[in-house]
């Protein structure tokens, strides 16, 4: 395989000889077996910006898919704990929160243990911005049996939510209620 490249102003052009075939190359474009009729110039800056945009887009799509996966799993958990776990799926889908997939993944890991406790009456999960707040949060409303032990338990629950990785804990708000 022979290859030649020449640098013009801000881009490369060249040919690659592979066996009988000659491929024409311009920076940022796919290889082509046909000689270009007119020279299309794409600067390295533009190519780099397009590549960055594409990379950001694909990473956003990957994150959205991960978030969707966690929401589906949370919905399945809700099915298993009908009446005790209530997830506001609409608000979770609609509200833009950084690292939402990590927060939901964390909730999925820790919630089953808490849902299993008789002192926990109900756990609601929604998303929104508190009055006068700056940013939207994942909001956990935990309803406990009305007892002295339940107050201690609610503190343990809150600590577990607020002491995780800051990407997770910074965007969680917990309200403990007693009934």
């Amino acid at each position: 395989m022979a290859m030649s490249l020449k640098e013009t102003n801000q881009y490369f052009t060249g040919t690659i000889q592979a066996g009988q075939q000659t491929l024409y190359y311009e920076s940022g474009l796919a290889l082509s077996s046909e000689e270009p009729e007119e020279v299309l110039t794409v600067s390295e800056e533009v190519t780099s910006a397009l590549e960055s945009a594409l990379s950001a887009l694909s990473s956003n799509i990957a994150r959205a898919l991960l978030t969707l996966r966690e929401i589906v799993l949370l919905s399945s958990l809700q099915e298993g704990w009908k009446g005790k776990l209530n997830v506001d799926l609409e608000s979770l889908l609609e509200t833009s929160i950084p690292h939402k997939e990590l927060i939901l993944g964390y909730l999925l890991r820790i919630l089953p243990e808490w849902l299993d406790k008789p002192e926990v009456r109900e756990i609601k999960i929604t998303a929104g911005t508190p009055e006068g707040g700056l940013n939207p949060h994942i909001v956990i409303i935990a309803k406990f049996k009305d007892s002295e032990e339940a107050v201690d338990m609610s503190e343990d629950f809150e600590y577990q939510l607020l002491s995780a990785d800051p990407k997770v804990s910074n965007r969680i708000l917990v309200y403990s209620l007693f009934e």
Partner: protein
Amino acid sequence: MPDFDPKGFKLVGDYLSSLTNDSGAPPRDAINRTAVGRYYYSAFLQLREVLKNGLKKYPPSLCDKDLRDFIASLEGGSPHAVIIAFLEALKEEINDVRIRQVHNSMVYLRSLRNAADYDLREAPEIEMPRGREKVNFSSQSYVRKAQRKYSFVENLLDDEDGDKLEDIIRVRKNTVIDCIKRALKTLR
């Protein structure tokens, strides 16, 4: 006469919550509603004083319009909202579970206090993002919970082991100024 120490409100809350249900005592829900409010105000006023006193010591090079507006809002504008917004901005900047606990505590205590003082229904409701939830001020659990929330604020103000809020304000001036700018957005 010395200035009033807002820790006194916390002591009133403790005193009220220790009252037993003897005949002649005020109704339990009235005691609990008052106690919850005292814990909130004690925490809020202590935070406000530490912020005000710390920020007033900033060098003139940092005293821009935002800082002056922030101090003015602490002294009379919208001090409740601006303190909570400041804590929210601070928890994003400094990775410290105590700050997250204090932010969560102040959001919770403020909702509880608003319901305690203004919602006279038998089952008052606290406001939260996307809805309201009923609370029962006849239950002692809400007073215990308010005590715990207060203790997180006290811990950040008086901590012997870690940085106190006062130290954070003194040492991390640029971070604090950034947080002030973000907190002011809630008012504008």
